[in-house]
């Protein structure tokens, strides 16, 4: 089968790899019909996540058709069209039982801090991902969810990560009616977080980024105020100024380790890897939020340390809330929102690329070329 093959920082190709096999009685094999490149895949692509091994296949956002099931699989059957949450979750451990499906304790041997994630390095369990024709899906009784009749596959594939992550970013913000919410980052998750902030009753939603076409997209899609931080002397002062010098009630970091905007953070975090990525967005979020406010973090960082103003967290009495998204917990509500037309995820998709052109797709997405917001990969076996 064809599958993406990681060869080193900023080097990927398509290769023939063996078909995945059932390794566990709760496994399923899914034939992929759509997968995406996520902003967090760029941390792997750039070589910033430790234990990203050559030969691995990335891809944690995918949908497909169940082709084979293990002996203990009961919740899905061969032929089902399923969307697969990016978390590998057992449903039995104490964390899954609390709804923390992103923190499963039975899906990652290599690290205790994070649960298993498809196609996301051995630090997240060493699972091959969905940027391929076929993929092994463990715990098929828990994660895979049958796509409702009539749902557009482009909507379905974005329900595996982008929509729930944007939604959880807003949810973790504890937004109260009338709150001012600032979202750092106008990538797909940031745009979705801005859109979802309204669902929780935000009174004002502001997005900051440096890429003009993405800001324009956010303005129209969310809809919200959107500003280019490259045109500001200091984004924190800007936020203070436009919030009566109080700061925002809620700040959301939807950027993570690839943030621009601070030379010190960029050099130490992205170029020299002296910290676990550039924490510029988180730094700004902490300093832009109101005293007693909430900072919600869905941007992905590496497992080591970052330079953030923790003293200001204490002095301002800020609550920081963060997690890998618990996709399964949120799916029922979000499927409703998509079916009722409250959310329109597929509008984020700007590029549909054959899986065979994956190297070009990564280059284009990582360099934000051709007004790219979200790229969907179509495997050859799904084109018919």
């Amino acid at each position: 089968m064809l599958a993406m093959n990681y060869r080193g920082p900023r080097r990927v190709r398509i290769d023939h790899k063996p078909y995945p096999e059932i390794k566990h009685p709760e496994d399923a094999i899914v034939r992929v019909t759509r997968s995406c490149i996520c902003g967090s895949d760029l941390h792997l692509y750039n070589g910033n996540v430790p234990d990203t091994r050559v030969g691995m296949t990335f891809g944690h956002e995918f949908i497909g058709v169940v082709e084979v099931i293990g002996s203990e699989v009961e919740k899905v059957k061969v032929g089902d069209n399923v969307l697969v949450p990016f978390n590998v979750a057992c449903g039995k451990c104490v964390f899954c039982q609390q709804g923390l499906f992103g923190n499963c304790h039975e899906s990652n041997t290599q690290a205790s801090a994070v649960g298993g994630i498809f196609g996301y390095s051995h630090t997240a369990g060493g699972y091959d991902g969905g940027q391929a024709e076929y993929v092994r899906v463990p715990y098929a009784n828990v994660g895979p969810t049958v796509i409702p009749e009539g749902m557009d596959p482009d909507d379905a594939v974005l329900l595996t990560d982008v929509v729930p992550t944007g939604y959880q970013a807003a949810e973790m913000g504890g937004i109260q009616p009338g709150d001012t919410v600032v979202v750092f980052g106008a990538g797909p998750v940031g745009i979705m977080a801005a859109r979802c902030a309204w669902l929780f009753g935000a009174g004002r939603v502001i997005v900051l980024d440096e890429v003009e076409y993405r800001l324009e997209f956010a303005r129209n899609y969310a809809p919200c105020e959107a500003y280019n931080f490259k045109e500001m002397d200091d984004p924190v002062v800007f936020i203070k100024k436009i919030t009566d010098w109080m700061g925002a009630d809620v700040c959301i970091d939807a950027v993570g380790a690839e943030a621009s905007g601070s030379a010190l953070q960029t050099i130490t975090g992205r170029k020299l890897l002296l910290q676990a990525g550039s924490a510029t967005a988180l730094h700004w979020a902490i300093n832009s939020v109101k005293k007693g406010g909430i900072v919600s973090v869905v941007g992905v960082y590496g497992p080591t340390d970052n330079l953030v103003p923790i003293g200001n967290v204490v002095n301002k009495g800020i609550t920081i809330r963060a997690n890998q998204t618990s996709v399964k917990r949120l799916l029922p509500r979000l499927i409703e929102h998509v079916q009722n037309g409250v959310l329109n995820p597929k509008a984020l998709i700007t590029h549909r690329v054959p899986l065979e052109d994956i190297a070009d797709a990564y280059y284009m997405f990582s360099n934000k070329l051709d007004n790219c917001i979200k790229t969907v990969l179509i495997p050859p076996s799904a084109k018919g």
Partner: protein
Amino acid sequence: MENNDYSHIPGWGIDADPKNDPTYPYRHRIERATKAPEPSDSNWERPTQQPVDIEVLKSIERPTVSAVFGTSAPPTGLSGQIRRFAFKSSESEYGHWLPLLLADRVNMVEGILDDLKHGHIPNIFAEKGLKAAWKYNRKGLLQSILIGVLVTSAAVALLSSKKSESDT
């Protein structure tokens, strides 16, 4: 067995407020052992264990291999040796993460050697997506090439001048 009887502590739990939970609503608390004895935090009915038929490096912060695990790329070669060394330290130590980053870079070279061993010359330009660069970012690509040529030329010139100095 955990002791769940706090009757000897005056005032135990009198101000407990289940609604005062900053993790609401993204974490549903489960009833603690004071009301329901099972499951406790570290004692759940484990899923069937996936057979451990490949080498799986295990974090020393957990007692067992997880019930399922990925089989993407077991450790091999020099990078594998470095990874095995890294897994002697906890996730809290730089001694864990820095060797893993080093192993990743060594693994990249191993990947090229492995390609050559199998008679495959890697097409680095295609793997870097330079077709897209040529189509959408020609100026940036040419700029990068120019900078690369200038830096390489400067390095070669510097090394040659040092060599000729040492020869005289």
